[in-house]
């Protein structure tokens, strides 16, 4: 895609959040732009507010000042989706009726009702990203597009990365790869580093935990390794206790990536529950409520398998 710069800067996309000073989303200190919309439904998802493509409502009960003092949201809602609980006098959202129209958000004086996601142009995003510019040079950092799934908005993501390159900012993406090849290639071609997830090897388990099998994802990764030999690919696995924290999976991923010298690293992301509270705000249920944390021992053992495959010690790992 080669658009005139001004035209590219005006393309807009659905952005969830821009997070500054990230150290786990690619080389150096990075500014991570989270986009809305995902084509998978991982049961361990720590960013549930990123899943749906459109802006969506969230509600924090603790901030509600009550129907008697306020009640403005009830008058604004065209869907009868806000109701009052007499025992505490506060409102609740009926998530089955809410259409995420957002009319209640500006009406709420205490910000108990708020919205995840907004439409932003390439220029607006980069203006915010460039505030961190001084950190990039020293640390080797830059911009990272994450999600959701950033390749689901291929025009916006490609324009954003291309314009970042033009402004001298290093680029990276985080992707799970479950999109058509044309979308995937359109975005990957503008990224210096491609952080990509190998969640599960077995297609049946992949479907059970993530929602679809992994055939298209693996094919996209293989094709990308071959099509873009000059890019840095970093394979990653979110390590979920009892799901994929086994050596078989790690070995299968290593067998898949090691023939390609442009896959420069394989990283393990230990499971955490930071996203759990957000499920309540969105009126959803968290699938892994009773899951334990990953034991340090498991992480060390599996990490050693990877280090051995890459012929390095723990001290030689990429930062």
């Amino acid at each position, binding site marked *: 895609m080669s658009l005139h710069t001004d035209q590219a800067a005006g393309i807009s996309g659905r952005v969830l959040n821009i997070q500054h000073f990230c150290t786990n989303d690619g080389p150096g200190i990075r500014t991570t732009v989270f986009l809305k919309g995902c*084509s*998978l*439904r991982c*049961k361990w998802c720590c960013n549930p507010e990123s899943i*749906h493509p459109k802006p969506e409502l969230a509600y924090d009960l603790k901030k509600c000042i009550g129907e008697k003092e306020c009640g403005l949201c*009830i008058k604004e809602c065209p869907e*009868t989706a806000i*109701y*009052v*609980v*007499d*025992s*505490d006098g506060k409102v*609740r959202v*009926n998530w*089955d*009726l809410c259409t995420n129209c957002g009319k209640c958000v500006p009406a709420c004086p205490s910000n108990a009702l708020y919205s995840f996601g907004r439409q932003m142009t390439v220029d607006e995003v980069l203006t915010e990203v460039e505030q961190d510019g001084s950190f990039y040079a020293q640390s080797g950092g830059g911009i990272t597009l994450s999600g959701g799934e950033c390749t*689901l908005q291929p025009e916006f993501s490609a324009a954003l990365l291309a314009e970042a390159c033009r402004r001298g900012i290093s680029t990276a993406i985080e992707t799970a790869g*479950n*999109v*058509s090849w044309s979308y995937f290639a359109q975005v990957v071609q503008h990224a210096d580093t491609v952080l990509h997830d190998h969640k599960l090897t077995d297609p049946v388990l992949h479907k*059970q*935990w993530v*929602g*679809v099998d992994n055939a*298209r994802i693996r094919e996209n990764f293989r094709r990308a390794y071959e099509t873009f030999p000059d890019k840095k690919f970093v394979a990653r696995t979110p390590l979920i206790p009892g799901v994929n924290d086994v050596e078989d999976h790690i070995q299968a991923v290593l067998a898949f990536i090691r023939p390609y010298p442009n896959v420069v690293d394989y990283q393990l992301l230990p499971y955490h529950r930071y996203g759990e509270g957000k*499920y*309540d705000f969105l*009126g*959803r*249920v*968290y*699938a*892994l*409520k*009773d*899951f334990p944390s990953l034991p340090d021992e498991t992480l060390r053992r599996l990490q050693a398998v990877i280090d051995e495959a890459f012929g390095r010690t723990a001290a030689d790992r990429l930062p």
Partner: protein
Amino acid sequence: MKRIAINIGGGYVPGLDAIVAGAVLAAHGAGCEIVGIRDGYDGLLVADHYPDGGLLLLDPRVIDAGSSRASVLGTAARNDPFRLRTVTADGAVEEVDRSDELLRKLTQANVEAVISVVGGSAVTGLHALSVAFRLHRKGLRTVCVPKSVENEIAGVPLPFGYNSVLAHVTETLERIGAGARDVGRLAVVEVPGQHAGWLALQSGMAALADAVLIPEIPYDIAKVAAALDAHQRAGRRPALVVVAEGAQARARTGAATAAADPLRASLAPNADPALGQGERIIDRSGAVAHAVAAAIQQSSGREVMPIALGLLARGGPPTAVDRQLGLAYGAAAVRALNAGDSGVLVAFQPPDVRSVPLAEALQRVRAVPAGSEFVRIARALGIALGD
């Protein structure tokens, strides 16, 4: 009307077939056929999961109105017609609105109207009520029958199932209380009631509990402990504290109060791979009983036993009140449809069964008023409410 369908939303209460029987008898009397949709709308939405057919032609002779077994229709709806999780043609997982398809399937099955048995504020019950409301707004003729264990549905003084659950919980509390008193321990029993404390309050009064903690009255654990001590001094050995799931401590007492919000339910990670899109919800109960029991033990040194009734609260046979109420509700729903009503709940407002707009039930959760006669009587009985 020639043909009506009936279905039941999630949330089990005993004796649901009384409603089905009432509807079938009334429909036959009016020269109308009635079919049951299995498991909410799943019988139509995912018909391939039902080799015997997702629709059951209902015959009054085979329905037992006094049965304490689960309904012949099932209540385990796993699929939302407005947000059915689907893998699209291009391989993405998305939630797709299939309500138009559902309405088309109802038309193809010659169904002219639907009677839905729905709940109140609990996640699964509110879901069925909301689906009925949305389908009504899309043009489906529908009348709902209220069922609830919390008795919190606005405009409905007596939903189906509440009386049976109240009777059963009271009997269970009496047994637990007698056992605890005999061995000198204090049972802290959690009963359903996320937003409304009717069940805890009324069963606690009937079983003469020492304290009843409900969502409407934030409790101070020190006052609960003091009341238990006073009972002890007066020669009434304390044995029973009843706690509603949604009971909350007053902020300043600092007691642990992890209220078991229904949203704090969890999905079983390995549940129903065969059913695909559906998600099995496991209610996490017992959190409040444990928190209150621990706080009482800390502040009074009493030996406590936290017990969560959970599904046990919903067991047992339907009472005579519920059997006749279910029959009446089923028949009233058919009569309401024949009278041209749609988008309403049938509600027993003594001495009549009236129609209440669905929107009214959706906009408010009816809790125990602070000045309620029940609250005054409970206090007069010496039951501590923690305030």
